């Protein structure tokens, strides 16, 4: 039995935990404002909000309900467009009307829901964040310009938002219906027990599994990492950072530990998926689905991260770079799960960069991605870890290139020579994301981009040509 609050009322269902939130709200509850566009998290027409109490405060994130296992909303507050409607239009809805942000209307509710999440966020509102909230919503009619204008007005209308009493302020200003202030109480009244679903497919956020094998999951119970294993904390011990493999990309983005360790974190993570997907997708899931192009895999390979594999009886820890044996072939038995990830925090003289190019810059799978961590002492390379995705059957840790760079002087000549080694370590194939030749050239360019970005005084494109 799964229990949660749907808009303003508690619901109970005996639907399997692997069934989809989208189908539940549309077809079981007849909430037709949530639309079906693609069923792979790429259009945002089915966006809903999921709220939960964190430290006594309601926290809402937007998700694509087409990739949300029903089991993952156990004990939470699910908000569809119907749960945002009031007697008159909310400012979000009104600005979308005023600016003609809707033409055919099929994507519109998704935009309204996402923009409302922006209003609900417990942070200072900025136009940039307003746009970021709809980075997972696709519109084929308007060309987005009217929606940008609506987002601008919405941001302005939040200027006086009370950060401490967000909910009350939003209710008073008629951004959300008044039942929202009863939600904490209603959530607390839900039974705490987790539903029993430890058999079945192990699932994190589901953002990849539902794309790969929807029909094998939707009528099944699944083993939900987030519910049953509770592993999404991020901690520092000595000079190491450990994070639960169930941490989502958004958890990383919002972690103080990560943002102080990686000054460009926001920029890097903006290149990965979209807000709703990042709200669900787990780092452990990104590793374990073994895509040769996983963005976070590339990111953590360059941190030389270790992963802990756990089963009923024991734990073992291996380097992430040793996890991948061949295409979709992992050093992992079926009863093991990736439970934690740990890595040494970057030091003063180490530098980190992540690069990715895809057909579309945002919300797309990379043609090639790469990350580097490099330490320099008196212009000598004292340590380096370099990764690349999309250029081989597995996410690559480029050992030979790293070995070559170690001890060398940081100079354009060194980097150009390193590229030759790098080219010998990769074996890209031609596919829908680009030809093999392109991927070789692109990785060279992104490898150069690491140095141009990290050491702008020493490297220019000209110096590397």
């Amino acid at each position: 039995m799964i229990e949660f609050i749907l808009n303003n009322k508690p619901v109970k269902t005996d639907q399997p935990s692997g069934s989809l939130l989208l189908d539940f709200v549309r077809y079981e509850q007849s909430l037709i404002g949530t639309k079906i566009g693609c069923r792979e998290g790429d259009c945002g027409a089915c966006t809903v909000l999921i709220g939960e109490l964190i430290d006594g405060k309601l926290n809402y994130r937007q998700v694509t309900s087409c990739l949300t296992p029903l089991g993952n909303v156990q004990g939470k507050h699910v908000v569809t467009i119907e749960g945002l409607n009031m007697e008159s239009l909310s400012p979000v809805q009104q600005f979308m009307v005023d600016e003609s942000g809707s033409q055919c209307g099929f994507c519109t509710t998704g935009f309204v829901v996402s923009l409302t999440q922006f209003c609900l966020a417990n942070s200072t509102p900025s136009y940039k964040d307003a746009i970021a909230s709809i980075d997972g919503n696709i519109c084929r009619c308007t060309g987005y310009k009217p929606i940008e204008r609506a987002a601008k007005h919405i941001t302005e209308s939040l200027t006086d938002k009370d950060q401490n009493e967000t909910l009350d302020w939003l209710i008073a200003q008629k951004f959300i219906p008044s039942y929202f202030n009863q939600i904490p109480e209603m959530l607390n009244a839900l039974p705490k027990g987790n539903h029993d679903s430890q058999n079945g497919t192990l699932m994190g956020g589901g953002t990849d599994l539902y794309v790969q094998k929807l029909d094998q999951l939707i009528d099944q119970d699944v083993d939900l990492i987030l519910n049953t294993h509770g592993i999404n904390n991020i901690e520092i011990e000595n000079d190491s950072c450990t994070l639960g493999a169930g941490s989502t990309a958004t958890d990383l983005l919002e972690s103080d530990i990560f943002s102080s360790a990686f000054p460009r974190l926001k920029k890097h993570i903006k290149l990965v998926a979209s807000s709703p997907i990042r709200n669900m997708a787990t780092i452990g899931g990104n590793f374990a689905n073994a895509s040769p192009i996983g963005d976070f895999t590339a990111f953590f390979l360059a941190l030389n991260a270790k992963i802990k594999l756990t089963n009923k009886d024991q734990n073992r820890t291996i380097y992430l770079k040793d996890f991948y044996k061949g295409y979709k072939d992992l050093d992992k038995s079926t009863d093991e799960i990736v439970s934690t990830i740990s890595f040494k925090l970057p030091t003063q003289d180490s530098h980190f960069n992540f690069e990715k190019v895809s057909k579309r810059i945002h919300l797309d799978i990379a043609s090639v991605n790469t990350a580097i961590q490099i330490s320099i002492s008196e212009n000598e390379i004292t340590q380096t870890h370099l990764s690349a995705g999309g250029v081989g059957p597995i996410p690559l840790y480029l050992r030979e290139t790293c070995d070559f760079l170690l001890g060398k002087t940081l100079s354009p000549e060194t980097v150009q020579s390193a590229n030759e080694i790098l080219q010998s370590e990769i074996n890209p194939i031609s596919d829908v994301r680009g030809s093999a030749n392109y991927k070789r050239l692109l990785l060279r360019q992104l490898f150069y981009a690491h140095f141009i970005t990290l050491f702008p005084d020493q490297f220019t494109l000209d110096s590397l040509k």
Partner: protein
Amino acid sequence: MKNIDSKGHVTGKSIYLDDIPLIQGTQFGVVFDSPIAHGTITSVDYSKALAIPGVIKIITHEDIPGENQIGGIIPDEQLFSSTEVHFVGQPIALIIAESDQIAFEARKCIEIKISKKNIIVDPREAQQKDLLIIPPRTFELGDTENSWENCAHIFEGQADSNGQEHLYIETQGAYAIPMENGHIRISSSTQGPTAVQRITARVLGVGMHKIEVDVVRIGGGFGGKEDQATPWAVMAALGVSILNLPVKVVLSRLDDMRMTGKRHPYSSDYKIGFSKDLKVMAYETTFYQNAGAAADLSPAVMARTLFHGTNSYFIPNVKMTAYSCKTNLPPNTAFRGFGGPQGMFVIESALSHAAKELGISKHKLQKNNLLINGDEFPYGQIADGVELNSIWQEMESKFDIGSIEKEMDEFNSSHTDVKKGFSLMPVTFGISFTKTPMNQARALVHIYTDGSVGVSTGAVEMGQGVNTKMLQIAAHVFLIDPKRVKLESTNTTRVANTSPSAASSTADLNGKALQKACNTLLERLKTCAADHLGVSSKDITLKNGMVYTNENPTDLTWEQLVMMAFLKRICLTENGHYATPKINFDMKKEKGHPFAYHVYGLALTQVTLDCIRGTYDFDAVKIVHDFGKTMNPSVDFGQVEGGLIQGMGWMTMEDLRYNNDGQLMSNTLSTYKIPDIYSVPKTVTIEPLETNGNDMAILKSKAVGEPPLMYGIGAYFAIDQAIKSFNPNFNSTFDAPFTHEKVLMALYGSLVSE
């Protein structure tokens, strides 16, 4: 007035096909399609699929009571393949089950054997093998053959543009329900209700009067639901006729992308010649249209390529030939612009090519050859009301093309790893269906006895705001509160024999018909009021819901007048019919006056290229557009912005890929990318050109649906120019879209062969 649907849209209350409440007993259909692009079916075994609990019936060609034929222009396409398959995704059967999920399961259990035949995906190869949908057509003006010797400069080359997935966010679908006496009511997500009705009647072997088609609205169409919404509706109706139960068929995104046709890819050759003073003297081009496996709308699309082959330029000697080439891809179909964009891309490529060779700015070449009043189009129509020069002047005065160019040059000479480029893209687009008989429409208006008004037309609302415009027209004629007017669904029993909502002309045709109906009713009411007030009916006016005589208010309200007319047994219902005057076209001569008028415009596109990564950002697009006298700025500006971005998507990231086996590789939203909010230009500025409007347009407000898409072509040439300033050795390949891959290869072309 804002789009009348927008309140329903932002609250999620608007009803689309999948939102229609289901009638008890409704069954669900999933299409079983060919996995092979060309071959002969040797056996199909449905037994395992039929054994699955919940599977009700599998319908094949053998179950069709009428004709197994859905071709619109040419009868060359079966609803369900009987023996031959011609493309991957060609329907073979419809599995009907108690749920979608059961039907999908059943589909996996069908065993099919196909003896493969040679697969052709390249239009030039098809043309060489004489695999043509229709005989080639040629548009000629002057004498190109004898012009070349007088040309000072001649350039030849090839220009290719790829297809484009429509990616309406609402996939194709239909819901058919049985009515009494064997009648069937179909709700369909279609731009062409009459096409659905006609083809359903044909396949079922019944009269059209037995089939009712209703459309409330559709979640995006862009041409993709003009003809290709039909098969799914016919299948659902066929299911109803066999089972006497309601049947719903909604395509999954994967099925939709695999089974439906796209914008036509084109491969083209050009030859262009200039005089010493850089006037284009002669232009020859051959278009190879990739039509896919059946005609669909390809012949009409091909015609519009020819109509717009010279875009906004006057060229005295022209010869354009087009081949509609039959390949083993899904039949390609209508898509905003309808072949026009593909034709314009070629002449813009030719001009870019020439400008580079001549060492001058392309925009000077463009401006030097703009069409003016009195010039003859290659199809014989004499240009009239041309706004191109005034638009160009407006662009120069508002945005100063010269200083934009100068700033760009300065930027490029002081930067090595980022480069800027810009382009100008003029557009001249003809308004009317090029098949003259289609330029007719009807509207049915009821005035109810309380003074409220119901309006039915043949127009389908798909986000373009046509219902809002219709409501405005009725309220404008009657001068009553728009709240008293209701736009009814589009229904074949109320408005029959309609043209599809397409060709940018839906508001013109249906709006003019509506205007006529409303005016007729108004005259009747005025006569009634005049009788009552004892004045002449020409002295009567109505405004704000009141009757006036000689501009003086009377006590008579609109409501009282309506009731009075009813009691006098005056008809309060009117059917208006409109047929566009003047237009004609003789296909034997390939000459005539096919368009009611033209829409003109100009876009200036600015791009910044990241030369390290081979990616780009659009800084700005500045547009001067000829709206005529826009009747609804928020709707019309929305069409310009939306069309622009859709065109830019086609020219940049939308990378349609089929392999040589005819399999769609870009078959999901994760492999086929359309613009997201981060990929649109930072600013889009739209300057409406001040004009007197055109009387052939409804309320002088010109058609606006398709023309702005072609502004997007400017994106290609802006990138092309930016690349040249990084890599002067780059020879443009004119091969759209300009993906990140092509950009990087162009930037470092000489290094790739390493």
